[in-house]
C-alpha cells in the first residue's frame, strides 16, 4: 500500500516534466501556451497528491483560467502579421548556450538534492489535511498583514497593467 503514492507521484512528475519539455521547445507559441496550461494542471495534480486541495484548485483557477488566457490574448495581439516563427527561437549559439546553462543548473541541483541526507520521517506517507476553514483562520490571524499587502499589490498590478498596455493618446501625426 505504501508504494501506491510513490507510483502516483512518479506518474505525475514524469507526465508534467514531459509535457513541459515538449511545450517549451515547440515553434508555435500558441501550442506552447496550451501545452503549458496542461503542465500547470499537472502541477495542480501534484498539490492534490500532497493533500493541499485548496492550493490545487487555486492553481488551476489562476493559471489555467487567468494566466493562460492573458498569455493567449497577448500572443494574438502581438502576432497580427504572420511572424517568422524561426526568428523567435533565437540564434543557434545563443539557444544552445541557454540549454547548456539550464542543464548544468539541473545537474548541480539534482546532485545536491540526492546527496543531502534528509533524516526523519520523510519516507513515510503522512497525510496532512488543511481544510479551507484552517486556511481562512490562518489568513485572518497570522497572515492578515500579508493578505492586505497582496490585495494592494494585485490592485496596483491591475491598474499598472492597464496603464502600460493601453494605447497612448495620439499627439503626433
Amino acid at each position: 500500500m505504501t508504494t501506491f503514492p510513490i507510483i502516483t507521484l512518479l506518474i505525475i512528475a514524469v507526465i508534467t516534466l514531459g509535457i513541459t519539455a515538449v511545450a517549451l521547445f515547440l515553434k508555435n507559441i500558441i501550442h506552447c501556451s496550451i501545452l503549458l496550461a496542461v503542465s500547470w494542471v499537472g502541477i495542480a495534480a501534484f498539490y492534490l497528491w500532497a493533500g493541499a486541495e485548496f492550493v490545487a484548485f487555486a492553481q488551476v483557477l489562476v493559471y489555467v483560467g487567468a494566466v493562460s488566457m492573458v498569455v493567449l490574448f497577448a500572443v494574438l495581439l502581438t502576432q497580427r502579421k504572420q511572424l517568422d516563427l524561426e526568428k523567435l527561437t533565437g540564434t543557434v549559439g545563443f539557444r544552445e548556450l541557454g540549454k547548456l546553462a539550464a542543464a548544468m543548473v539541473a545537474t548541480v541541483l539534482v546532485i545536491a538534492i540526492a546527496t543531502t541526507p534528509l533524516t526523519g520521517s520523510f519516507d513515510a506517507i503522512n497525510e496532512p489535511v488543511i481544510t479551507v476553514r484552517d486556511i481562512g483562520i490562518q489568513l485572518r490571524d497570522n497572515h492578515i498583514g500579508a493578505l492586505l499587502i497582496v490585495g494592494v499589490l494585485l490592485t496596483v498590478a491591475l491598474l499598472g497593467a492597464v496603464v502600460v498596455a493601453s494605447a497612448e493618446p495620439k499627439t503626433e501625426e
Partner: protein
Amino acid sequence: MSASSESILEAFPLTIRDWLASVVPLDWLQWLILSLIGIVAILTVFGLTFAFTTVTERKLLGRFQNRLGPNRVRIFGIRVFGFFQPFADAVKALTKEDIVPAAADKVLHFLAPCAMVAFSLLGFAVLPFGKHLSLLSNIDAALLYFFAAGAASELAIFMAGWSSNNKFSLISSMRALAQLISYELPLLLVAVPAVLMAGSLSLTGIVVNQGGDLGILNWNVFTPWGFAGFIIFFIAALAECNRCPFDLPEGESEIIAGYLTEYSGFKYALFFMGEYFGMMSLSGLGVTLFLGGWQAPCAALAFIPSYLWFYAKLIVMILCFIWMRATLLRLRMDQLMRLSWKFLVPLALVNLGTVTFWKYTADWEGGMLVARWLIAIALVILPFISLGKVLSSGLGPRKYRYA
C-alpha cells in the same frame, strides 16, 4: 404513511446503486462500480435533459415568434408534438460528413470539441443533486473546484477559434476570451456572499444552510443581498454560457457562426452539447447558491424527494435562459465590457458589504429587524440607481431617423 414512503423515495437512487454494486464480490471492483454508476447516471439524466432542452427551446422560441416550431418527426408513426426531434438530429449529426479545412491546425481542431464537452461535464461532479446525491460530496473546496473546472472551458473555445484558421473564428475566439474573463469576475464575486453566510465553501454546506422552519423564506434569494446576487449571477451566467443576449462569440449576423464556422457533423454537435452542459451546470450552481438547492419550499411538500426539487428548479432556470434568448437583443462588444466592468463588478463588490452587514446584524429583533431589512434593501437599491444614473448620463433615448 408519508414518513416511510418519503424515506424510500429519497433513498431510491442509492438503494439501486448499492444493489447493483453488491452483485460483484471484489472490494476494489465494487468501489469502481459505485463511481461508474454515479457517472453514468449523471450522463444519462443530463444527456436526456440536453436532448429535450434543445427541442423545448426550439418549440418555445417558435411560440415566442408566433409560429409552431418543429412538430414533424415521428417514430413508428407516433408524433408527440415533435418531441422526437433530438433523436432525428442526433442521427443527422452522426451521419454528416466531417469537414476539416485544409489550412486548419488538425490536432487542435480535433481536440477542441472533446475538451469542450469534457470540461463542461466536470462541474457536475460537485453539485449536490439531492440530500444524498453528489459524486464528490466530501470535497471541502467544492465551489473553488467548480470555478476551476469552468475556467478550463474557455481554453476549448479559444482552441476551436484559433485552429480553424479562419478570420471570423479568430475574431470570435478573441471576443470569447474577453467576454469570459470579464464575466468570470462578477460570477465569482456574487458566489462569495453565499459562502460567507454558510461559513463553508462546500456546496452541500451552502444548501444545508438554506434549510429551516421558514421553508422557502430561508432561501438566499429571499434576502436583499441574495436577490441582488441572484440577478447578477443570472446575467453573468448568461454571458458565461455565450447565450443570447451575450452570444457575441457566435454572432451569426456579424461573424457567420464564430468559432463554430469550420465545424460540421458530430464535432458541431459536441460543441452544442458542451454549451448546454455548461448552461445546466451553471444553472445547477445558481439553484444551489440562491434557490435553496434540493430544499423543498415548505415542510408540507417535503414528501417529494429532494432530487426532484433540484431538478424542477434547474428546469425553471433553463426555461428562464430560453425566455431571455427570445426577449433580448445582442449587445455590442463595448456595451458588453461596460456592463461587466462598470456595472456588475461594482455592484457585486457592494453586495459583499451588504452581506457583511447582514451577517453582523443576524441577532437584531423586533423593530431593529425592520431596520435591518430597510438598511440592507437601501444598500442594494441605492448603488444600483446611482450607478445606473452615472453610467447612462449623456445617453438620451435613441432617435430613430429612418423609421
